[in-house]
C-alpha cells in the first residue's frame, strides 16, 4: 500500500483567537503551529495500514518553508517521505490548493493514481474550514471519494475474485451508521476519533530530524480562487457572564425552577 497523506499547518489556538490590525489574518505572533487534528489522525491511520499490509506513507503539505516542521512531526509518527509544496505563506484557496496537490501527486508517478493506492486527507482544515479539497482532488484524478470517515478497513487482495483491494469505511450520520465500499485507488478524508494518534518515539523523532524534505515549487497562486476574503473578525460575544444560581446542592431549587421556565421538564 502506497499512501499519500495531505496535511495543513495551522496555528495552535488556545483561549482566544486574535485578528491582526489589518483584519486579514489571525495574529500568530504568540502561537505555535500544528497539523489539523483530523489530519494527524489520517497520518496515524496510514501508518497503521502500512504496518499491517506493508508499503509506505508520504506526507504532503502546501505551505511556507516553516511547514517542513509539521512534515517532520508527521515523519516522527512513522511516515517515510515528506513533500513540501513551498509557498510564500500567503493563504491559498481550496480550488488552487486542490490543483497544486493534484499536480504534485500526478508528478510523482504515472496514470490516474500516480502510484498511490490511497490519498488520505482530514475532513476539513481546522482554520479555513473549506470542506472541499479532497473532493476536488478526487475529481481531478478521476477517483472515488469518501469523506468524514471514522472507521476504515482495507479488504481483498491481489488474488481476490473482485479484482483487488477495496476500502470498506463507515461514519455516523444522525444516529445511523453509513457504510461505503469502493475499489482502490481512492481518496478518503477522515475525522478525529478514527484512532488515537501515537506519541512519536525517540527514534522516530531522530529519524524525522535527519530526513530530507522534498521541496516542490507549485504553479503560482492564481489571483482569485472565486471566494475573496474581505476581512476576519471575532464574533461579538452577547454573553455578559453567567447569572450564578448558587453554590453546590443549595442551588438545586433555583436550577429546577430554571429548567421548568425553559420548558424542558415536560
Amino acid at each position, binding site marked *: 500500500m502506497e499512501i499519500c497523506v495531505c496535511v495543513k499547518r495551522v496555528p495552535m489556538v488556545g483561549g482566544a483567537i486574535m485578528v491582526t490590525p489589518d483584519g486579514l489574518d489571525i495574529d500568530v505572533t504568540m502561537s505555535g503551529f500544528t497539523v489539523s487534528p483530523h489530519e494527524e489522525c489520517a497520518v496515524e491511520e496510514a501508518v497503521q495500514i502500512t504496518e499491517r499490509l506493508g508499503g509506505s506513507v508520504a506526507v504532503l503539505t502546501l505551505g511556507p518553508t516553516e511547514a517542513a516542521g509539521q512534515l517532520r512531526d508527521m515523519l516522527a509518527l512513522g511516515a517515510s517521505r515528506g513533500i513540501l509544496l513551498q509557498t510564500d505563506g500567503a493563504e491559498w484557496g481550496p480550488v488552487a490548493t486542490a490543483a497544486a496537490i493534484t499536480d504534485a501527486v500526478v508528478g510523482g508517478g504515472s496514470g490516474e493514481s500516480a502510484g498511490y493506492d490511497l490519498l488520505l486527507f482530514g475532513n476539513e482544515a481546522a482554520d479555513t474550514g473549506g470542506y472541499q479539497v479532497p*473532493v476536488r482532488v478526487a475529481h481531478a484524478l478521476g477517483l472515488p471519494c469518501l469523506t468524514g470517515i471514522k472507521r476504515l478497513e482495507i479488504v481483498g487482495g491481489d488474488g481476490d475474485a473482485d479484482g483487488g483491494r477495496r476500502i470498506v469505511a463507515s461514519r455516523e450520520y444522525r444516529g445511523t451508521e453509513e457504510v461505503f465500499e469502493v475499489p482502490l485507488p481512492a481518496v478518503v478524508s477522515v475525522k478525529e476519533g478514527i484512532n488515537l494518534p501515537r506519541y512519536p518515539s525517540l527514534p522516530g523523532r531522530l529519524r524525522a530530524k535527519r530526513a530530507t524534505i522534498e521541496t516542490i515549487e507549485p504553479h503560482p497562486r492564481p489571483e482569485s480562487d472565486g471566494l475573496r476574503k474581505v476581512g476576519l473578525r471575532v464574533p461579538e460575544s452577547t454573553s455578559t457572564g453567567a447569572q450564578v444560581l448558587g453554590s453546590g446542592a443549595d442551588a438545586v431549587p433555583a436550577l429546577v425552577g430554571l429548567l421548568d421556565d425553559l420548558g424542558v421538564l415536560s
Partner: protein
Amino acid sequence: MTVLCLIETEAGGGAADASMRALVVARGLADSAGEDLAAVWVGPAEAIDPAGLVSAGVSSAWAIGSAGMSGYAPLAWARALSGLAADLPGLPGRVGPERGPVSAVVAAATDHGNEVFAHLGAITGLPMAASCVSAARMSPTECSLVRQRWAGSLLEDAVLEAPLALLTVAADAIPADAVAADPASASAAGLRVEHYEPLLADGDLLVLASESAERRSGVSLASARVVVGGGRGVGGPEGFAVLEELAGLLGAAVGVSRVVTSEGWRPHRQQVGQTGTKITPELYLACGISGAIQHMAGCQGAKTIVAINTDSGAPIVAKADYAVIGDLHEVLPALIEALKAR
C-alpha cells in the same frame, strides 16, 4: 431567478432542522435580489410537508428521484442538483448564455451538505463557500457573505464570485426562532411538488451509502433538545453514570469535551466541539467543562447554557447564561432527586 435550497429529510420523515435553518439564509439571499426560493430534496414528493416550506418562503419545490438513488450517493446528488440548476424546467426566469434560471444553490453545512456541495463545486468548476451564516446578492456574479472559520470561533467577510453561487449554511449559527414557527398558518395549496429525474453519469453511484440496520438507541446529539455535557471534572469513565441518569430523566443526549474522548473515557461520537458534533439544543447543561475555544465552537448554537463548575473563574462561566458553582458529583445527584420528587 431562483435560489434553490437542498432539504435533507429526517429518518422518521420530514425536513431536517438544519435544513430549515439553511432555508433562513437561502431566503435572505433570495430576498436581497427579489428572487424566488425553491426547495429540492431527494426522495418521494410526499417526504416533506409543504406547509412548513411555504411558511419558510418557498414558492416551488422539486423531488429528485431515480431508480438507482435508493441511498445516499453524494456524487449522484450533486449531479442531480447541477442538472436541476442548469435547466430548472418550467420556472420563469431569464435564461441567458452565461446564467441559468438558478442564481444560487444552498444547503445546510452538515456532513452530507458539505460533501454534496464539494462535488457540486468540482462538477461545475465553481467555488463553494462552506459554513455561511448570511449571504446577500451584490451583482449577477457576486454575493457578499459571512462564513465561519475555526468552526465559528472566527468570522470571515467574503465575496463569492461566481455565476452560480454554491454555499452551505452553518445551522448552529441560525437561531431556531428565525425558522418560521407556525406552518399551520401557511397555506400549502400554492405549492406543487414537481418530480425531477436526474441524468446521471457513469460512476455517479459508485459511492453509495448502505445503512447498517441498527440505529443507535437514545437521542441523537446533533438534534437533541437538551444535552447534558461532561468534561474533565467528571473525573473518569465511571463518573458518567450520574450524567446518563440525568439525561434519561430529561430525554437528553450526553455530550463530552475533547479531553474526555482523548482520555478514552467516552466514545468520540459523543464529543461536542470543533472536531466533534455541533449541537443546537434548547438547553446545554455543561458539567465540569472548562470551556476551551474548541469546545465552545461546538455548543455556541445552544439557546441556553448552564454551567456547573467548581471554579467560578472557568472560561465557561463567563460564556454561559447561568452557572452553579460546585462539584457536579454533589449537584447532579441532588438535581436528580429533586426531579424524581416532582
